[in-house]
């Protein structure tokens, strides 16, 4: 482990500690909500990028997030399960559904996959709209129970109520860190190498003995599972699910966060989500122009930083070096 690695790990630890300390300094429930939602969206956006490591962009990601929410909400409401049992089950169910959705998309790639996944996601979403029982139709599911309190002997009981902003914050933060870490490990595991190979050339990958379809499917299912996790947390945090909110609106935003943040690097979606989320909240006084700002940022980023916002520091250093060299030349 050389000095550079040390630096990386230390800074990482510092960031994590900072995340855990935020509630100590920020007491305002409004900001807690904003941050909690941000962490939740990071789970989803990161999953979106994880699919894209095989070179495919899935537009079924957000509907699958909703599916996770619906699954856990229904398990809790109809079967009276505990949230802590419903969460893994819902993730599992959604993973299976995602496999079912993915199977027909096997033959499609690129734009075709993009639209095929959109189509299947949309069909799923319209099912929630159409079938009032059990999905609650257009009105969706309301009064979704909040997570059950956590009893750990010797520790104070962690309640989840309307006012337990910090406990929600920590709940979702922990899950976010877990997902991000998992996806980081996956990407640096053998699976990641295979994904990279598939992204580069499916044909050659198959001719060095990689079962392309199988691995693409595995990765899609894993990513969808994370989307589902985000959906569950969202459902039990908001206590409301409305099909309309999993329409293309959010799907496009997730896509934007991830791509503008930078698909090339692991931290891209995180940066993208945080930047856009904060811009949205800071510009609350001028709701009309928020989309305008978004549009301009998008255009600027895509035009100037094809690698995404994440490559900004590198780019700045580069520009600076160019400038210096030019100056030297002038001398």
């Amino acid at each position, binding site marked *: 482990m050389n000095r550079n690695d040390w630096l990386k790990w230390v800074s990482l630890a510092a960031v994590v500690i900072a995340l855990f300390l935020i509630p100590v300094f920020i007491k*305002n*429930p*409004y900001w807690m*909500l*904003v941050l909690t*939602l941000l962490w939740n969206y990071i789970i989803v956006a990161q999953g979106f990028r994880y699919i894209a490591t095989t070179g495919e962009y899935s537009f079924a990601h957000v509907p699958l997030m909703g599916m996770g929410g619906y699954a856990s909400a229904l398990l809790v409401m109809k079967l009276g399960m505990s949230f802590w049992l419903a969460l893994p089950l819902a993730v599992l169910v959604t993973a299976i559904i995602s496999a079912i959705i993915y199977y027909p998309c096997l033959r499609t790639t690129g734009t075709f996959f993009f639209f095929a996944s959109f189509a299947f996601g949309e069909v799923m979403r319209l099912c929630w*709209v159409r079938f009032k029982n059990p999905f609650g*139709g*257009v*009105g*969706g599911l*309301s*009064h979704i129970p909040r997570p059950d309190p956590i009893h750990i002997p010797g520790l104070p009981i962690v309640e989840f109520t*309307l*006012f337990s902003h910090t406990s929600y914050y920590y709940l979702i933060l922990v899950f976010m860190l877990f997902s991000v870490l998992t996806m980081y490990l996956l990407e640096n595991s053998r699976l990641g190498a295979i994904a990279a190979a598939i992204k580069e050339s499916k044909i050659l990958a198959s001719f060095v003995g990689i079962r392309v379809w199988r691995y693409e499917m595995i990765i899609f299912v894993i990513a969808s599972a994370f989307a589902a996790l985000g959906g569950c947390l*969202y459902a039990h945090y*908001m*206590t*409301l699910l*409305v099909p309309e*909110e999993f329409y293309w609106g959010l799907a496009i935003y997730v896509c934007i966060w991830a791509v503008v943040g930078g698909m090339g690097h692991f931290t891209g979606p995180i940066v993208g989500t945080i930047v856009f989320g904060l811009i949205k*909240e800071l510009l*609350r006084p001028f*709701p*009309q122009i*928020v*989309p305008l700002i978004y549009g301009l940022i998008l255009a600027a980023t895509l035009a100037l930083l094809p690698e995404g916002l994440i490559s900004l520091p590198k780019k700045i250093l580069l520009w600076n070096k160019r400038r210096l060299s030019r100056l030297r030349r002038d001398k």
Partner: protein
Amino acid sequence: MKKKSEKKGLVALIGSLSLIVILAALPFAVAQAAEKHETIKIGIAQPISGGWAAWGVPVDRGARLAIEDVNAAGGIKIGGKTYLLEAVTEDTQAESAIAMAAFKKLIYSHKVGYILGPMSSANNKIVQPLTEENKVIQLFHGSFPPNPDDYYNFRGTLIGEQYAPAAYAALMQLYPEIKTVAILNRDEEGGWINQKVARNVCKALGLRIVADEFIDPKEKDYYPILTKILTKKPDFIGMGMIAPGYHALLIKQGREMGYKGPFLAPTGSDTAVVLDIAGAKAAEGLIAVGTADYIGLATTSLMKDVGQRYLKRYGTQDAWSLEYYNNILYIKAGMEAADSIDPKDVVKVWRTPGFTMPSVYGDVTWVGQEFWGINSIASCPLPYTQIRNGKEVVLGVVTWEDMKPLVNAALGK
């Protein structure tokens, strides 16, 4: 000589200095004068951007107009202190997460005690507990009936259960021969509720429902659905919660498809828009309750005056705008009666039976006890109108009293 000049210089110096001091002090003095009264923040949580803005923006405008009027009239005087109102608008975009953020910002960051909103019933489901627990008065118009436990939750205007019956009653007076009806609503939560009400009312009035349809809120071409409905040969078509532009399209296309009977637009119609889109010929005979044409159907001088100023300010008349103008008047009345700006006291006053408040419709009270177990609906009278040769004509006014029997029918009792 020399000394004199020195003295002169000294005087000049002092004079000029004092002048500067006075000039500098003047703004402060003015500021002090301005500091005499404090401000009360009124939160407006509405969809200002996105697809729902057509509903949210008028609300914002109406409320702000009211607040300006109140301040212009010298604000609210309580315990010798004068308070001015200040509007704080937060965008909800009719989406849960954003609406939740808006409410939390209003409650915890702006520390408001009164919130007008949200627009969508779905949003209300999640923000209502928040306002309830924080003892923040929430004024909005939801299509779903009030719940006895919602102590801080008020509806500034009559709700679906009252619109539909009023409208249908009016219709039956005009067209006693009607037997079969087709009822239409947005495929959306509010629409589902209104549809239920409409069904009950039709049953109570002995009308036979031949077509019972929901329309896709995004659809603009109603030929397919109308084809379906018109094969059932309804005597009239009753439309529920459908945005003005869209039910105008329904009327227009319905006429094109050869439908001759009357149309009914129970909630939030907008004569101007309907006439503009459907045209006078098609819109002929449209019965509506509580349309946006406040000037046309003004029952009081205040209503006419406010309507005209609204028109002058914003260039249009919008449905729901004056209902939210009313809400501000209610708040003012409540505060003055309670002699406090604290929502808790205001609620107590509002909840006292027989407490009357001014509104553009004249004096109103909070009603609904006998039906929903709580008095939290403003008893605005509803003028019902019909479009006759291109003009909106007020046929009459349904007051809360003569509506009561119908409400039972609407509730299916």
